[in-house]
């Protein structure tokens, strides 16, 4: 879960991005006299229980090698593919979310090449007729980045080279898992835009449950096409950088590639960039040549005769549209309009929400922080206060405990009751935090926060009994306690009390602090201040 935080999904990053969100022209003067054209192919692993063409369960990173392999996955003779329709559902859901045009009929093709990670000698993909064409994803507010196509295809096996003996080992766990290849048009103009595009896509895929979006785990990988040209000239020769597996590396690779192209083009008026496929060295942060255009393999694409045509009816596509989970942009608008949350609050809430565990096969999400917040908000008065409790206090404490929202044991009803206790000044905010910590430490679905507050002696001290809610236990005793604490504080700090009486009003804060410490947070600072003032003034007279 924390992985996505590290990779730019953290609330802070999102805030910063929104604030820094640059207009396109701003970046032009970074490479004066040059225009940059970038297109991205994203390979996103579909969050399905079984692989694309077999019943074998998909695997998580770190599971023992070759424990998720069937005869089909290892390309044994006589095995035949059988399309897993759950993968189609999720690809279509993705297409709809990207405003793409789902094709009523599409088909599968074989892409041939020989390598250890490809047991059949071909990958089944959608070369001639992909499942969806067109579409767009908006970045930086309102810049649409066009989608060219979305295609379904098989993932490869994983080649692991034992470093000492340089012996290659093959792990087939991943072989045949479903991928969506989401191909953008070359609409991106800077490494920043490229990064934002991938981040937005990650969030979208997570929100609709079609991919967990983790680049760290390899569930999302990028190939990036970069070219550079003079303004007004046709696009330059593009180079493809393969297999970038973090936003940071992608950003660095694009930047490096732009500079490389510019220095080639600057070297002489007739210089041109050779068309190449390049890799990225994660140690030197530089791209390097993998192969030139001349070495480009001929994949001998051929229709897969076993799988035939995938036909989707309008009713089916409509059904996918209707069961679509709420998209992040729609959630943003709803949270703003219904609850009047601030942008910052919404950003944080959605960022936490995007970390909720993604179910397999597009099944319904377990409620995330947004749904939780809405339940709390329905039981409390002020949505902004409720939101702060959910994001700052609850998720904050969970994060401090190295846990996530998914580990939360406090029910929405319990948190709402706690918030109301604080609202009614039966608990101080600080006591409320303590109570929440206690409830996380001692999970119980049935425990009442009010009863716990009494049991733990956390009820607020107040100098006036009238301020408490009538429905609550009368806080007469706590008021008496506060009085006693104030008296004790004045007695314990005679020189400060004397100083106050002589007119040094600032010294009161020190005495208040003493009371607060002695009350273990149960005292309300303002009430304590009033009580102390009264006591000290009384004494004076």
């Amino acid at each position, binding site marked *: 879960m924390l992985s996505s935080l590290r990779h730019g999904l953290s609330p802070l990053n999102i805030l910063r991005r929104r604030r820094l969100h640059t207009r396109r022209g701003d970046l032009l003067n970074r490479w004066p006299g040059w225009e940059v054209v970038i297109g991205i192919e994203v390979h996103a692993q579909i969050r399905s229980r079984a692989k694309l063409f077999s019943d074998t369960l998909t695997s998580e990173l770190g599971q023992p090698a070759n424990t998720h392999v069937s*005869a089909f996955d290892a390309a*044994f003779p006589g095995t035949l593919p059988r399309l897993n329709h759950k993968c189609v559902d999720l690809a279509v859901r993705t297409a709809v979310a990207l405003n793409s045009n789902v094709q009523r009929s599409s088909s599968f093709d074989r892409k041939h090449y020989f390598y250890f990670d490809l047991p*059949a000698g071909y990958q089944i993909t959608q070369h001639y007729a992909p499942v969806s064409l067109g579409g767009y994803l908006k970045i930086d507010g309102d810049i649409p980045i066009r989608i060219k196509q979305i295609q379904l295809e098989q993932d490869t096996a994983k080649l692991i080279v034992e470093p000492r003996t340089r012996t290659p080992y093959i792990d087939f766990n991943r072989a045949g898992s479903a991928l969506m290849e989401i191909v953008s048009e070359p609409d991106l103009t800077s490494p920043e835009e490229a990064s934002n595009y991938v981040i937005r896509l990650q969030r979208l895929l997570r929100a609709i449950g079609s991919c967990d979006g983790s680049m760290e785990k390899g569930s999302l990988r990028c190939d990036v096409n970069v070219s550079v040209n003079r303004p007004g000239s046709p696009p330059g020769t593009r180079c493809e950088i393969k297999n970038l597996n973090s936003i940071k590396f992608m950003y660095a690779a694009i930047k490096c590639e732009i500079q490389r192209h510019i220095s080639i083009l600057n070297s002489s008026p007739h210089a041109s960039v050779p068309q190449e496929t390049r890799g990225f060295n994660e140690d030197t942060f530089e791209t390097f040549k993998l192969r030139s255009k001349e070495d480009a393999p001929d994949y001998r694409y*051929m229709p897969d005769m076993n799988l035939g045509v995938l036909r989707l009816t309008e009713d089916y596509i409509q059904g996918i549209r209707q069961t679509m989970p709420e998209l992040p942009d729609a959630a943003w608008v709803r949270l703003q309009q219904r609850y009047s949350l601030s942008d910052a609050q919404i950003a944080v809430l959605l960022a936490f929400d995007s970390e909720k565990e993604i179910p397999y096969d597009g099944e319904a999400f377990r409620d995330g922080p947004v749904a939780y917040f809405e339940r709390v908000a329905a039981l409390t008065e002020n949505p902004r206060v409720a939101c702060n409790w959910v994001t700052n206090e609850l998720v904050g404490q969970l994060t401090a405990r190295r846990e996530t929202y998914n580990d939360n044991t406090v029910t929405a009803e319990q948190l709402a009751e706690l918030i109301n206790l604080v609202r009614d000044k039966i608990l101080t905010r600080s006591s409320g935090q303590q109570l929440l910590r206690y409830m996380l430490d001692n999970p119980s679905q049935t425990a009442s926060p009010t009863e716990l507050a009494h049991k733990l002696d956390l009820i607020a001290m107040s100098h006036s009994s009238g301020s408490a809610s009538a429905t609550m236990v009368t806080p007469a005793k706590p008021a008496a306690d506060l009085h006693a604490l104030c008296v004790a504080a004045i007695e314990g700090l005679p020189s400060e009390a004397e100083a106050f009486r002589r007119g040094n009003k600032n010294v009161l804060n020190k005495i208040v602090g003493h009371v607060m410490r002695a009350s273990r947070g149960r005292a309300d600072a303002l009430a304590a201040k009033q009580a102390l003032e009264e006591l000290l003034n009384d004494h004076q007279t």
Partner: protein
Amino acid sequence: MQLACVNSAKSSVWRSCTPPFLRRCISVHSEASQGRDKKSSVNALVYVANKENAAVIQGPLNGVSVAIKDNICTASMPTTCSSGMLADFTSPYDATVVDLLQNAGAHFVGKANCDEFGMGSLNTYSIHGPVINPFQSKLDKGKWVDREQRSAGGSSGGSAAAVAAGMCDAALGTDTGGSIRLPASYCGVVGYKPSYGLISRHGVVSFADSLDCVGILAKDVATVQRLNSVISAFDPRDPTALPVEIRRKAYDAYTTRTPGSFEGIRFGIPQEYFPSELSPTALEPTSRVLETLKSLGGTLVPVSLPSTPYALSAYYVIASAEASSNMARYDGVQYGLKVKPEPSALEGDASNRGKVDIRDIYAQTRSTGFGPEVRKRILLGTYALRADAFDNYFQQALRVRHLVRDDFNRVFRVPDARFEESIPVETDCNSPDIDFLVHPTAICPAPLLSEAPNSQGSLDTYVQDVLTVPASLAGLPAVSLPVSSESDSGERGDGWPMGVSIVGQWGCDETLLNVSRELAEGMS
């Protein structure tokens, strides 16, 4: 990547260049062929099942002995596909057809020889050696073991020969372009290629997925029907299996016939199926069949299938392209033959010389493991799929395939149930409205093995398939019935049997088999 197999393909008889470790396997298999005198002189079975292990399941096929072509996966017996690549391979699972037969109580006699991965028309491309036709002409007065050495046909030559030699009641074969019908014709047995998509291909080693069919060879049609009623079942594990509703629709369209009578049945005789290559001996059995059909009340109608002359070329482009793709998995990495790579013999930059290139690993294993015919077809198919050749070859072949299918749909009375709105290509009232086509299965009787063309030769050998590939391209059912050439005083024939094919519209298999059975009864 280049397929470096040209050099080692020089020797004309593959067996002579079989590496020593493969010869070992071959000898083991031959010894396993018990009943040496008879069985080894045919070389039909490459693995003989252990009788003690035979499961006794009560079922409709109790007492029926069946040979399984060696490209159909069996967990209890090796599945070599007659290839050096899989010489030591045993599948981890049973094909659906094997399961079905076993559960119906059939008894397996063993695995039947075939051309490597089903590629061949004479069953001469096999690490197990060629199959020798068990038939002996009455004109041949010598001892049976010294009979004329003729081909059993391919690629299901072992299946046909095993039935002909009485080693089993029936055999499973596969038919991609004629691989059941041709050996049935050469060996004098019944060969049935079903409609594409009726019998499960799950567990059948793919040669060309869009054409491959599992079928049945037997002494008589009734036995074919007994097996067919068990294995012709929808299998969710085969993505090309046609659903039950479509099967039902096709069946219903053909069941208006009165059993035992050919009254009102129209048999089309396609003029294109009597090419110049057709030997005169092949004509006579067909004429006798036509006479019988007429005497049984059938109507004979001359028809034209004008795309037929292009079918063979289209077939070889499609089948080779698909084969080149399906053969890609045999690389020695997961299973099968693996040759320890020698340092690079490939051209390339000097820095690679003396090192083992990844291409060596593939090229050396594949050049050693595959026989000459498979190598040739991989090269043909690889060429046809190149980006710059794809449109002119593969796409063009698919267009021809459509024309061939249109031809059939134009002459059949019933539309093809697989296609929703199967509008006749021309709704002209001159449509011959036929129920079945009748034509010779092969252009000649079984050729002598000594005259069998080798893979270095021209494409002549492919002419064997000229009459069988159109039905394969269109996915239509066909039965080849054996007709002896002896009853007519023996003067015109050489005493060898010939097959006559009855072809029907897609999905009419049950009626086709009934008509074939009644026809065969009428012939005798």
